[in-house]
């Protein structure tokens, strides 16, 4: 199984014209004369599209094509204004590379990148608004795309999805794409061909076009694999074709319209000249690259002693990773900070449908809370109450502890007198405890802890309390 991903590059203007790329405008208001393929119009290449493509290439450890050339891909379709798409066929800007994809189990799955090339997006068709007619909106025409092609390295849907998530994460780290899949910023074509067990040769492949969410990729792969298996098992053969995934019916179906004459007659685009990049240009971009997810993940494991799993989750988005590092910088408790970000904070944000960038709790505020957990001022139970205060904007952790009176009793003297009180108040249980075997003692200890907690209104430090109780009961 191989994947082709179309990534919309987050430029202000189009790849070959000065029209805006903003999503969601009125039909055709962002399609200028160049985008419409008007007679006499000519393309001029957007510098940022080239820069972003190179950033991506360096990000996946690929070789950069120092000379790349645009070609015309010829076919007729109403959303393709010139009757050809300007793409790169013979000499792409990003050549072979190897991308390490973290899997949910913490292992790394290597994916071979075949190439990535720059091209222009097509427009959109609206099918149901006009009787017997299709409406064409060319606002999207000319939006820069990077088409990223892999070798057929995927064996499972899980690998494919992990790769896509990783690609998504890389693109947003680099800031080269907004990664908004619902708006089509990242679209995926899946090439599937089956290999019968025990053989080396793959069968005929089908291509599933434009699968626009991670979940749909997973489902589309599942249903298409099943469809191909059914055909092969019943003695049929697979037709090489382009198919469309229908999410509503959870099935793939043949796209007949794209099948009519697919001789694309690629040839070098004479309106554009070769892109020639020198080492200085590439080195300059390399120097400006941010730390990428793979390196960051390794560093988080190494420096902060995080688990593979936590590190993967934290680096998945640059915002989360930055939040974590800002908070840990103050809290000096990486593991605890990671737990809070991935646990309570993520949960609260999720409940309110908020993004981390909109979090009412800042990294500094969260760190203030974690400092108080680490120094035993707060039990985990109390900490949750303080977090609630932080979420509601009641001030810093210390201010909330003060205001709500949530300080944990850790002072040995104070604890001792609480324990003494409880022991004194429950002589029967003390007798039972002293006579009991180890298992029963454990159970009774829980009773005493509960009583002390009750007396302390929950503020007794549970670890200290345990030790103290044992010592006093055993000696009593």
């Amino acid at each position: 199984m191989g994947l082709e991903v179309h990534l919309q590059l987050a430029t202000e203007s189009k790849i070959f014209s000065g029209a805006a790329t903003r999503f969601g405008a009125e039909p055709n208001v962002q399609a200028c004369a160049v985008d419409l393929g008007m007679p006499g119009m000519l393309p001029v290449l957007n510098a940022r599209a080239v820069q972003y493509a190179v950033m991506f290439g360096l990000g996946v450890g690929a070789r950069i094509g120092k000379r790349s050339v645009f070609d015309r891909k010829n076919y007729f379709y109403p959303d393709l204004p010139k009757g050809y798409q300007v793409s790169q066929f013979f000499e792409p800007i990003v050549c072979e590379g190897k991308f390490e994809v973290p899997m949910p189990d913490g292992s790394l799955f290597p994916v071979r990148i075949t190439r990535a090339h720059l091209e222009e997006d097509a427009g959109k068709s609206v099918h149901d608004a006009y009787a017997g007619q299709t409406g064409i909106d060319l606002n999207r025409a000319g939006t820069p795309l990077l088409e990223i092609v892999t070798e057929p390295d995927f064996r499972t849907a899980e690998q494919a999805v992990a790769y896509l998530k990783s690609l998504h994460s890389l693109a947003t780290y680099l800031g080269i794409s907004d990664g908004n899949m619902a708006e089509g910023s990242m679209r995926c074509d899946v090439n599937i061909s089956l290999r019968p067990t025990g053989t080396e040769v793959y069968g005929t492949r089908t291509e599933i076009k434009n699968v626009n969410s991670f979940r749909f990729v997973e489902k589309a792969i599942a249903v298409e694999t099943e469809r191909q298996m059914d055909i092969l098992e019943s003695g049929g053969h697979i037709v090489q074709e382009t198919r469309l995934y229908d999410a509503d019916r959870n099935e793939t179906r043949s796209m007949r319209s794209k099948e009519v004459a697919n001789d694309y007659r690629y040839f070098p685009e004479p309106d554009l000249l070769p892109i020639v990049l020198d080492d200085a240009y590439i080195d300059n971009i390399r120097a400006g690259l941010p730390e990428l997810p793979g390196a960051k993940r390794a560093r988080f494991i190494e420096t902060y002693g995080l688990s593979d799993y936590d590190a993967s989750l934290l680096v998945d988005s640059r915002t989360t990773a930055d939040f974590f590092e800002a908070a840990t910088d103050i809290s000096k408790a990486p593991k605890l900070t990671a737990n809070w970000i991935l646990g309570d904070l993520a949960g609260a944000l999720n409940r309110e449908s908020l993004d981390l960038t909109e979090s009412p709790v800042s990294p500094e505020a969260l760190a203030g809370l974690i400092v108080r957990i680490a120094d035993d001022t707060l039990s985990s139970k109390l900490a949750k109450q303080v977090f609630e205060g932080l979420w509601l904007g009641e001030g810093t952790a210390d201010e909330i502890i003060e205001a709500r009176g949530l300080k944990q009793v850790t002072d040995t003297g104070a604890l001792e007198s609480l324990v003494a009180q409880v022991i004194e108040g429950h002589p029967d249980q003390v007798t039972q405890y002293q006579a009991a075997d180890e298992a029963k003692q454990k159970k009774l200890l829980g009773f005493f802890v509960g009583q002390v907690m009750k007396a302390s209104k929950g503020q007794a430090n549970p670890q200290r309390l345990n030790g103290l109780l044992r010592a006093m009961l055993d000696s009593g």
Partner: protein
Amino acid sequence: MSPNELSTATAVELAAALRAKTMSAVELTQACLATIARENPVLNAAITVCGEQAIEEATAADTLLRRGDGGTLTGIPLLHKDIFCTRDVATTCASRMLENFIPPYDATVVSRLRAAGTIMLGKTNMDEFAMGSSTETSVFGETRNPWNIHCVPGGSSGGTAAAVAAGFTPLGTGTDTGGSIRQPASLCGITGLKPTYGRVSRLGIIAFASSLDQAGPMTRTAEDAALMLQVMSGLDPGDSTSADIEVPDFRANLGDPISGLKIGIPKEYFSSSLEPRVAASIQAALVELEREGAELVDIDLPHTDQGIPTYYIIAPAEASANLSRYDGVRFGYRCEAPTDLNDLYERSRTEGFGEEVKRRILVGTYALSTGFYDAYFKKAQQVRRLISEDFNTAFETCDVIAGPAAPGVAFGLGTKTTDPLAMYLEDIYTLSVNLAGLPGISVPAGLLDGMPVGLQLIGRAFDEATLLRVAHRFQLRTDHHLARPVPTAVNP
């Protein structure tokens, strides 16, 4: 100046008259419009005439001139080939496909000439989408040669060539993909320059073959061509293939002697395809250049014969893609009541394009299709490099190359329309220059039985200055460029 003098004067002379106030721009424009009104019904050289607009522009020019403002070209009328997009003025490429196309923008060439103060009289006829050498494939009917109205003016810029020769205008624009400026200039007895590829912006010029197309001036003299090229040239950020290279002052050294200049004579340009009497005229012209002090040297352009096959793969291939945008969706001709999308495409294109255009689209599509790309298109691109290297080698031993612009004089209307291959041979001496991206100029070299012959000069890339200088010295020495056809109104 008398109306007769007006219609034969050069832009340089007219500019002097405007500055001396012996004539106004409005008077000049009116005189040109009057010639057009009188001669165009026969010649059919202009297909759009912007009379009112031209007078308005001339009035504005007179205001500038009265104040002593404006440039050399302020108030000088011109005609544009109908391949240049002109804002709010129909731009048809002489095709049914664009019969009603009115662009909301100007080509860079048009806006530069407008900014220089020229007066746009209208648009000229051409072969449909510039595909032809006779201006007979126009949807508006053929243009006739003012020297003999039973002959073609050449093409594809035949409308401009005929208009300049017949006195409609001192200046006109053309485009040249394989000889479309030089061959009609030769057949109509005017001066036509195809600049180096990249010298003049292609933005706003309806594309035929993108790696070959180049716009240039069509004038009565080399000096006028220099004047016009000055305005047309220069980097255009809107055209990726326009060259970021200094534009010299083309008139500065125009009069410098050419003694010691080496002029290469390719023997391949004097082969059996050249009409012997034309060869004799060209030889006579070369003798004049020798008398000017130039040294004639023999050179070889061994791949000359491959020019035609190379060109007739590359140009149609690029054209096949360039013309895909004419699909009846966003602009241009749309067939009546299409039954489905494919019907819309096929009928709009089949009804909107003429035969020669369709023929070239077919050839180009074929040359690019699976299984033929390497044998045709790639092969042609390789031979293109060999042709280009031939010129590079030749320019190691000479400064300018000279030869005929066309294999004969103007031929009879309809004599080559049924045989596309005979028509293709018209460009045998010009299209290699496009393949190599070099500048070339055709200048009048005398008459044969009353029909003009053109001398072609080919220069090094971006060295139009030397070409213009040789052409200007030739025109100082000879008076071939002063010959004018008898007005067609009295020419039966």
